[in-house]
Structure formats: C-alpha cells, structure tokens
C-alpha cells in the first residue's frame, strides 16, 4: 500500500478515536478539504505521521484544541459578501423591526467578524437593545478571538470597503480604536452578543430564533451532516424566521427545503413558512 492509502487509514482511525474520546465528530466532513487541512497540520506539528500524533491527541486537551483549530477553516471577514448584508439591511430588517425582541443564532461564527458586522448593522437600523445574538463555534481558539473583538489593523481597509458596499452609511472608523497594528472593536457591540461553544455535528439546538446565520460552514460537511444541521436549524427557527446560508450554499435538494422560500433568488436567505408542507 502506498503512503496515500496509509494516510487515509490513519486519518479515519484518528477521527473515529477523537469522536469516541471527546465527542468531536469530523467523520462526516468533506474529505478532500479535510485531507488538505490534516496534511497541513501534520507538517507543522512535529509528528512524523497521524498514528504518532494520535496517542498525544487522545490525552492532551491543549493539543486537541490546537488540532481542531488547525483542521477547520476559520477565515472570515467583516461584511463578507457585502450584498448579503445589503439584503439583510434592506429586506430582512424591516421584518425584524416588527418584533419587540429578536433572537439571532450565528452558527460557526469563527473569530467573530460576521457577528460584529451584524451587530453594527442592527444598531444602525435602530434595533439597539432589542436583539440578542448567540454566536457559536466548535473551536475554542477562534471563540476566544471572537470574544476579544480585536483584528489586525491592516484588515480594516477591506472591512471598510465591504461595509460601504453593503450599504453602510456611517464612518466605519467610529466602530473601532486603532492600537499599534490592531483595531479594537467598540466594546458596546459585545453587549448583546453571547459567545458559546457548540458543535453542530453532535449538540442540540437553541430554541425560538428569528434568524439563523450559518455561512461557509456546511460547505465542509458531507450531505448527511448537512441534513442533520439543517434539521437542527429548522427546529430552532420560528415560522417567519430567516435562514441565511453562504453564497455557494443552497437549500435545494435538502430535506427541509419544502419549509422555506428564498427571499429573492440567489440571496441564500430563506424564509420559514408558517404552514409546513
């Protein structure tokens, strides 16, 4: 058997073991991307192969957290896909405003850029004090970055451009203070956000949400896991609630598709029907 074949066997064994020891379940992640991430992690880890790493990973929680961070894709941006945020501002917020209080779940929030973007947008639209965001991720390392809300200053230019393209009218510089080469987001933005660890592959849902945002998370999952996660969201969402997916993710062909209408074609914002089919 060649090295590739052995690597595939080792990675299957490792994922199985991690599931049994920690309940972290990566067995249903799309293989080619996971394989890249595993190879990447391994090459910087000092271990010669995954079998060698396995013994330590099963016993050393810190190493495990670092591993989880290494094999998941955590890149994010503020106001990533500006047209999505524009659609939220123009087409979703008017509905949200009709509620006295709005609950939003950002699943797979990574280091928080998307969550803070939403908070900025909601405040600009006058929803301050009338919403709560539950921001969850499987990955403790990115969650602690998210809680801090501090980003490299050099990223701000892109974030500002995104913000403006998304229809933002304010001076974005009001939302952060620059310190050396970092930008610290305004602490008030955190007030209405609850950050928590949550694993979409194994944990239960959060209830009674008006909106669920889960973008660029399920693209790494195989079909069966996507179905599980969408059912989770479906249980969490109130009728009339909004399900927001990434640019290249769609409900088409999914089990829950019949319960939703897309807000406008291509927005990847789906509205949950009142009458379930």
């Amino acid at each position, binding site marked *: 058997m060649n090295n590739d074949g052995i690597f595939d066997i080792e990675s299957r064994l490792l994922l199985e073991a991690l599931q049994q020891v920690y309940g972290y379940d990566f067995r249903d992640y799309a293989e*080619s991307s996971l*394989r*890249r991430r595993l190879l990447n992690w391994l090459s910087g880890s000092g271990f010669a192969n995954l079998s060698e790493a396995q013994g330590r990973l099963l016993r050393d929680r810190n190493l495990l957290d670092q591993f989880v961070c290494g094999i998941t*894709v955590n890149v994010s941006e503020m106001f990533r896909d500006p047209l999505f945020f524009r659609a939220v501002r123009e087409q979703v917020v008017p509905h949200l405003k009709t509620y006295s209080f709005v609950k939003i779940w950002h699943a797979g929030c990574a280091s928080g850029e998307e969550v803070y973007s939403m908070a900025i947008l909601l405040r600009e639209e006058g929803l301050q004090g009338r919403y709560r965001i539950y921001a969850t991720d499987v990955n403790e390392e990115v969650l602690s970055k998210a809680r801090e809300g501090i980003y490299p200053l050099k990223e701000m230019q892109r974030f500002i451009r995104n913000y403006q393209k998304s229809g933002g009218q304010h001076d974005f510089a009001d939302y952060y203070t620059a310190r050396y080469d970092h930008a610290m987001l305004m602490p008030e933005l955190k007030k209405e956000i609850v950050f928590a660890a949550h694993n979409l592959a194994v944990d239960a849902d959060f209830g009674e949400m008006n909106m669920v945002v889960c973008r660029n998370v399920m693209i790494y999952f195989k079909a069966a896991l996507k179905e599980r996660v969408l059912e989770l969201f479906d249980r969490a969402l109130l009728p009339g609630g909004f399900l927001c997916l990434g640019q290249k993710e769609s409900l088409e062909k999914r089990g829950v598709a019949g319960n939703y209408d897309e807000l406008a074609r291509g927005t990847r914002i789906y509205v949950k029907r009142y009458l379930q089919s």
Partner: protein
Amino acid sequence: MSNATCNPDKRVFRVVVLGVSTGGVQALKRLLGALPADFPLPILIVQHISPEAGNGLARLLDELCAIRVKEADEEETMEPGCVYLAPPNYHLLLEKDAVLSLSSEPPVNFARPSADVLFESAAAAFGRGVIGIVLTGAGYDGGRGLQRIQEEGGLTVIQDPVEAEAPSMPEHALSLVAADHVISLELLPALLQLLAGRHSEQGEPS
C-alpha cells in the same frame, strides 16, 4: 469507459483539470470553443479571477461554446461534457465519489481559487485518471499540483511558454514536471479528444 480503446495512452481518464491565469479568458474561449458538446470527460477549471467577479465568465463561455460551461456548485456531481469553473473567492476540490466541493481556506500562491488545491485533490481522488493542464498565467500556481498529478500516475500537459500570453505559470510547471505534452493552444483540443478516447468528428481544428 468503453470507447477509451482508441486512446493512444493506455490510461482511462476520468477528468480533466486545468489551471490558467493571465490571458485565460482568451485561452479558454479558444480551447473550450473547439470542444464538442459531447466531449466525454468532465473538465474542472481554475481561472484566477477577482474575488468580487460574478459568474459572468461562465455565462459568457457557455454562450460561446458548444460544450456546457457553468460555475461549480457545492456538492455537485461532475458529469461528462460539462465544464465547471471554480467560483470567485472559493477553492474548488474534487472528492473520490466525483462530487465537487468548495472551500474558503486562505489563498494558496496568492490565489483563491488555486489550481494547486484543485490538482492535489484530483490527484488524491482519481490518481491515474487525471489529465492536468497548466496554461498561460503570471505567478506560480499549478506547478506543484501538476507534480502531484504526475506522482499519482496522471497525465500532464503544459502550454508551450513561448506562445503563452504570460509564460511564468507554464515555465514554473515545466521546471517541476517532465510533462507528457508541451503543446500549443491550437493543438490542445485535438489532443484532449484523443486522450478522452475519441477522435474529433470535425477533423483537426484548422
């Protein structure tokens, strides 16, 4: 594939993967424009493109070419006679079960999509069944991935850098890989038809 017998090479190919950058739109018009609608393999393409670009290129090529051209969707199963372009700002990868997947991992070689990412996944998934092609482009994307394709027994094709609008991608690939074919764009459609196991019905492109 039963008609693979007229393939001069003994391998039975399952997929064509192609990386191209600067000069790519022209090159793709010429290449894809010369392939028939029933070309027997799926073709996956990474064309470097601005992250903000829409799916305009896929639509344009689809209009111009007999073969079907579309932007790749997540979890789509690749089919013969169809060209899949990586969407702007996502890496395109190929799974063992012929399903396409997307990823927003950081850029590789300053590129997202990156040809190396596509090629490496194709090599791991389909080994000897892969035809890898590097065309015109600035930068260094594609060479490393082409090397992986060769290591796994796939077939490698590089555009002759002499005629490439931007020679650095083909040159870099050539420095890493003893390619099976170094070829002009003009002859590439006919080569692909041969490799895919059928002769061009219209004869050689003129």
